[in-house]
């Protein structure tokens, strides 16, 4: 019974791998992986705001007025463009309302996209890679050093953390450089539950 309880209610089971069918079968593997479009071309507010905005239809149409202009798969995008109505995407990474999460605080302080979202650049259909549970958040909040990367590697999904003593050295240096708070602040209830 206990096992069943753990399996049934754990975010690992309930959230990881969630991959709903979106109105447009947008492939991150194609756009971000093969074509190498930077994450911030579409998610342009991610360094400025708490919420990583989805791109406006306008952003899609920057290219798709010229490329694949009559693709059936892109019809919802063209419809949105002509009518001005939003495309209704399904939210994948969904935190509880009692958690405050700020994208800009993470992205501009050395946490790469890949740390939480996984290899988006290899996903044809985006799924949730990490459990996004409180325990999982705290793993990093307790010891941020091993998860930080240089500023120019934030959106690079291929970048690997160094191994061995070098890792410790770089982590400490980056923590200082990004002015990451001490453990007491990083694990305080109020930091996330405001």
């Amino acid at each position, binding site marked *: 019974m206990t096992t*069943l309880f753990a399996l049934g209610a754990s975010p690992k089971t309930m959230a990881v791998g969630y991959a709903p069918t979106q109105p447009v079968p947008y492939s991150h593997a194609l756009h971000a992986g093969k074509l190498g479009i930077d994450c911030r071309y579409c998610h342009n507010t991610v360094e400025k705001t708490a919420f990583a905005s989805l791109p*406006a239809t*306008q952003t899609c149409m920057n290219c798709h007025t010229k490329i694949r202009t009559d693709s059936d798969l892109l019809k919802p995008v063209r419809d*949105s*463009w002509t009518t*001005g109505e*939003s*495309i*209704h995407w399904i*939210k994948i990474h969904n935190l509880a309302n009692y958690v405050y999460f700020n994208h800009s605080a993470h992205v501009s302080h050395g946490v790469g996209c890949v740390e939480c979202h996984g290899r988006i650049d290899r996903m044809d259909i985006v799924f949730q890679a990490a459990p996004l549970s409180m325990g999982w958040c705290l793993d990093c909040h307790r010891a941020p050093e091993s998860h930080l990367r240089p500023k120019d590697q934030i959106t690079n999904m291929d970048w690997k953390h160094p191994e061995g003593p070098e890792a410790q050295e770089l982590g400490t240096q980056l923590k200082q450089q990004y002015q990451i708070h001490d453990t007491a602040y990083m694990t305080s209830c109020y930091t996330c539950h405001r």
Partner: protein
Amino acid sequence: MNHEQNQAAVAKGASYWRSLAHLADSPEMQEMIGKEFPGYDVDEMLSPASRRSFLKFAGASMALAGLTLSGCRRWPEEKLAPYSTNPRGRIPGVPEQYATAMEVGGVAQPLLVTSYDGRPIKIEGNPSHPFSWTVKEKLGSADAFAQASILEMYDPHRSRTVMLDGKESSWDAFAAIAQKQFSALRGNGDGLAVVSEAFSGPSAVELKRRFVAAFPKANWVEYEPINREAEIEGAKLAFGKPVRTVLHLDKASHVLLLDADVLYSHPAHVKYAADWSERRRSADSEEMHRGEMSRVFMAETGLSVTGSVADVRLPVDPARLYAVTRAIAGKVGVAGVSGDEKLSAAEEKFVAAAVTDLKDNGVVAGGGALSPAGHALVHAINEKIGAVGKTVTLHEDPTADRPGYAKAMGDLVVDLNAGKVSMLLILGGNPAYDAPADLKFDEAIKKAPIRIRLGLYEDETSALCNWHLPRAHYLESWGDARAWDGTEGIVQPLIMPLYDGKSITELLALLAGEKVTDGHEIVVRTWGEQLPKDAGDLPLRKVIEAGLMEDTAYPAANVTVQASSYPASTEGHLHPLRCGFAHVRRAICQQRLASGNARPDDQAGLGQRGSDFQERCRRLGSDDRRHHQDRR
């Protein structure tokens, strides 16, 4: 407490009890009081075996939920709807601030409104506007009414649809019928009467001009229940024309106030409070004006915010206020006023203290219950002590170029009762509720066959009208307005109208048959005429962003006191709005007698001197501020 004790308590006449059942002391009550957690079995809750079984059940049910919910999903599905085209400069999730203004009684209060993802959420003063800042260029202030107006905008009780005789209608239906009726009146306007709120913005004034030009014979009545009629009349007595008085309390060392609540109920009170506190620095302060404490003398007819912080305060009967003013004028040496006013000991002491240093950077201001003659004396005193141009400046006041409210409303009621008004248009306000009770406006209004009302709420006035039209809130509409000193500012909307409302300007444009009826286009057109034309829309954008147009204050009025004598203090010096409108009623009786439409009691009405003050208080609420709030 056990049963015996309880019995004893009741027998003694228990001094306190938790309920009537407790006092009656029934056996059920006894049992209930004995338990700490009524309805629960404490022993069972705490027994280990029971807790384990509870968790077992809970775990099983959650596991089942996890297995059976589609897709093993933790949360309900949520949608994300990004813009089709991003609005310029908009970053979702980042609050933005826009300058706008709230107009009350024809005076704008400059504001800076915070908007979150397209919804206004907080109102503060505009820090770049001199009539709003408390710390120059850093901190804007707004009063309680402006702060509360955001709740007014979201108020679910606001009127939402066009109503015709109590049934839902539409703007299209109204426009079709009204345009036909109004185009029949075009060029004439006979029988058309308008009761409007006061407004000061160039676009609104221009639209009024166009409306009146289209219907030249229409009777345009402006009415505000909280107004400064006595002040305007007083300026006319003193100078021969109305002026806008601007106090400079940051420059005044001695402030003598005659029922003038300048820190709270004055239209410019946000600025006045900031200016006044600028001169209340103690000797320990490290800021400007260190140690320069101004002194405030207040003679007032009721306790006010300003009176509560005055250094010397004299509670005074409204009927004595003029006498005190006259005594001060006499002491200062105003020509035409003898200094032999009979005063009580308290009044004598107050006057002596108040005038001592008045010539040394002093200023006098009147308000509240002060009569027109009292206001004229205030101007004369200011001139005599050399305050004009230093601690007080006088400006032209184009908004006062209109009939007095009392006369205009009185004449309208006479016209209504005589059946001369065939179409009555009521813009904002709530005259059926707040017009002077003696006028019986709520009865007269029914004599007009067609009654159209634009209002935020379906209120007393709407109930008496055929058409009720929902009004757009100031946070929903384009417009413009002038601050107390006349500085022009643009009212820009923070959100599209929630309930399909229109502003006064838009309705006037619609009824006057204008080609341009959109509020934004009207504002662009009006401002396009006074802004440089070679730079596209940039100058207008700058004005909208700043919330004000520099150098648009009312020009200084080049006036000197002309009055050479002032009435004695023995009678007739109550404020016109505080003496029950007996004089208006007398005028109505007189008009009816003259026109041959006299009623049986009109001859008796001529001699009436009594006041309906209590009746008015009952209807209006005796507290002006509270009433003001109701109206907004």
